[in-house]
């Protein structure tokens, strides 16, 4: 299988779907002439022309509304935001129009639309440009929320998102664009709402998505050196949520740690933890742990920024807490759990 980057996988998905369906077009700031802020749309203007790769002014609400209208009219717009932070100007269009029109029109107007953007922390981009906003979208009925963590998933999920007849918020992670991985040569579609088991283990399930799924895999590798066998479940989408996969995994491991880069309060991570209790209560051997971003605006200073986002060590400690038995060293914060 060829090895390509996450960025190249996204580009391939866009190109394949534009070939596959003439109704697919791309619209956003700097997507055409500049070839994408993160170079995802590189070469597409040349290949598909300005009718289908459309640059816009700085007007998120406007071009989102244009996307909603195009979708109502039967096209399949792929709306790109430079980063997810900029879509906040368009939330009325996303929440009240993209998410609700199908329902409020009694099914007359499906909105087959993809809203793409890099989501999550960059490097010292400070509070307004480092947000993980998936929780907002997962909260809003009518939207699907997809977050790939590998090149193969970036390809397969974006293609499925474009073919889906619902508005899909497709959240890429800026820190993953250069991640390389094997991608099938043939057509590759990953159904929305199916989690991927990244690593089998028997002691504890790490439930995560997006970049944190990668970090979880690294943490699981480090824990393996201690003899701790962690399972890693990459959800790939928050809506739909693959509760079956969560249930199956926790029934095997009896412990769960939910890991997310986004801030914790009111988060999908908290919702996932609740689902674990619902579907696996009698299987649990320890309280479900949540490792999430600190409930603070993202700090600018590098040292504090690091503390605001979960890292491998935090994940490893959560697993150690979940499996802790008398006689083992006390992991960080276990004592607070005692109290």
């Amino acid at each position, binding site marked *: 299988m060829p090895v390509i980057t996450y960025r190249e996988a996204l580009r391939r998905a866009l190109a394949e779907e534009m070939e596959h369906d003439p109704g697919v077009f791309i619209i956003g700031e700097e997507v055409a002439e500049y070839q994408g802020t993160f170079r995802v749309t590189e070469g597409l203007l040349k290949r598909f022309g300005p009718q289908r790769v459309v640059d816009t002014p700085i007007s998120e609400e406007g071009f989102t509304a244009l996307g909603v209208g195009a979708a109502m009219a039967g096209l399949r717009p792929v709306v790109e935001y430079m980063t997810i932070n900029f879509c906040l100007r368009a939330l009325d269009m996303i929440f009240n129009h993209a998410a609700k029109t199908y329902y409020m029109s009694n099914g007359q107007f499906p909105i087959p639309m993809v809203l793409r953007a890099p989501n999550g922390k960059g490097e010292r981009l400070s509070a307004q440009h480092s947000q993980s906003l998936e929780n907002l979208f997962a909260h809003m009925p009518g939207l699907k929320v997809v977050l790939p963590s590998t090149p193969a998933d970036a390809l397969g999920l974006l293609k499925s998102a474009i073919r889906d007849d619902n508005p899909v918020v497709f959240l890429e992670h800026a820190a993953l664009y250069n991640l390389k991985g094997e991608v099938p040569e043939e057509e590759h579609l990953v159904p929305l709402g199916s989690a991927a088991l990244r690593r089998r283990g028997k002691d504890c399930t790490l439930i995560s998505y997006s970049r944190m799924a990668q970090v979880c895999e690294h943490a699981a590798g480090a824990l393996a050196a201690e*003899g701790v066998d962690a399972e890693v479940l990459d959800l790939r989408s928050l809506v739909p949520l693959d509760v079956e996969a969560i249930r199956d995994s926790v029934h095997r491991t009896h412990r769960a740690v939910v890991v997310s880069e986004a801030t914790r309060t009111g988060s999908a991570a908290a919702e996932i933890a609740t689902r674990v209790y619902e579907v696996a209560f009698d299987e649990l051997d*320890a309280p479900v742990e949540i490792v999430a971003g600190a409930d603070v605006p993202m700090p600018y200073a590098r040292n504090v920024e690091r503390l605001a986002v979960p890292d491998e060590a935090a994940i490893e400690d959560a697993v150690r807490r979940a499996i802790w038995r008398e*006689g*083992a060293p006390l992991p960080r914060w276990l004592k607070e759990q*005692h109290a």
Partner: protein
Amino acid sequence: MPEISMPKMGDAMEEGTIVRWLKREGDPVAEEEPIAEIQTEKANIEINAYQAGTLTKILVPEGQTVPVGAPIAIVNGGAGDGSGAAPAAEKSLAGPPPVEQQPPARTPQQESVPPARAERAPAPQPPPGRGPQSERVKASPMARKMAAQHGIDLAQIHGTGPGGRIVEADVEALRTRGAPTQPPAGYPPARVVSPAPTSAPRPAQAPAPAAPPTGAVASERPLSPMRKTIASRLTESKQTIPHFYLTSDIDVEPLVTLRAQFNALQPEERRISFNDLVVKACALALPAFPPLNSQLAGATIRTMAGVHIGVAVALNEGLIVPVIRDCQTKSLTRIAAEIREKAGRARQGRLTPDEYSGGTFTVSNLGMYDVEQFAAVINPPEPAILAVGAIRDEPVIRDGKVVPGQRMRVTIAVDHRIVDGAVAARFLQELKRLIQAPLSLFE
């Protein structure tokens, strides 16, 4: 963040229970100032802050038991430590009122205790309304499910998860043999039992699964830490030490007379008991019998330098043996005063570990309960224990005539591994001689 952890107050101590917090979160503490009272297997002890600072976090609530070494509190040095602890004033809105601020009248069940003592009295159970968590068995849902499937009583299981929670592996271990369970590979073995260097391997700590009750059960409660220690040490003693018993019937008529004369001249607090006299007699007799002042340490017999006599004191719940050190050098009145003082504190649960450990011989007296004679269980690693019965008026034969007499029976239980019958018999003879010629005891 300097942590205060559960201290190890003696070789046998593996866990301790927080009886009460004397400070609350946010309180300033001085170096060496007591911050909490803990209950070990034997006594209640105050824990002091290692350094001056602020008690920023209480990690273990009252009534909870944690292993030795587990962090129980965090004391941050100096002001403005920035640890994230909310200011004390803020916390007091949410937290329960501190012990010190409770008016004494709030604990009606302790009315008989003077208010000044109320704070210090042992409190094995947290006061009502302060800690709902103590009675409930903590077990994970998985552990509960497994226990239910296999008909295992969770109360029989020692939890090895955080905060003593019973986890699946604990149930599994009990189900498949009662073996102590192991944490995942790479971690140190769970609960390393440190046997006293002198004693034989200890029996497994895990209690046998309780047989299902055969009749109506009135109540159930977990073993107290002291009960656990008594159970394990005396089981060990009876299972590993070959006891033999010798009884001697002693004429105590002169002793009764002499004690009455002596006490008549003393103020109340300096009067001596028969038990004090027996201890003194032992102290005088023992130095001549090194085997009875020895301990078995593996393949070695260790003869101890001093005669440290333990005196069994009955408590409401269990018993404790305060030790009077170097009795061979102490006068009768000194021994009597020490026993009185230590027994008093023992009943309040306020002995320190070094006051109830390190004995070389024990005297146990049930005479006040009108027990004629009994055989006691040796308190390891000591080689023997003397059981003292009541003083009885009974007919004795003197010069061929039956006359009224006063007699007392003592029974010594001896570890035959170290002490042979003849040695113990000669000791008993010497003890009898000393008690029957009691003036020598009043030195």
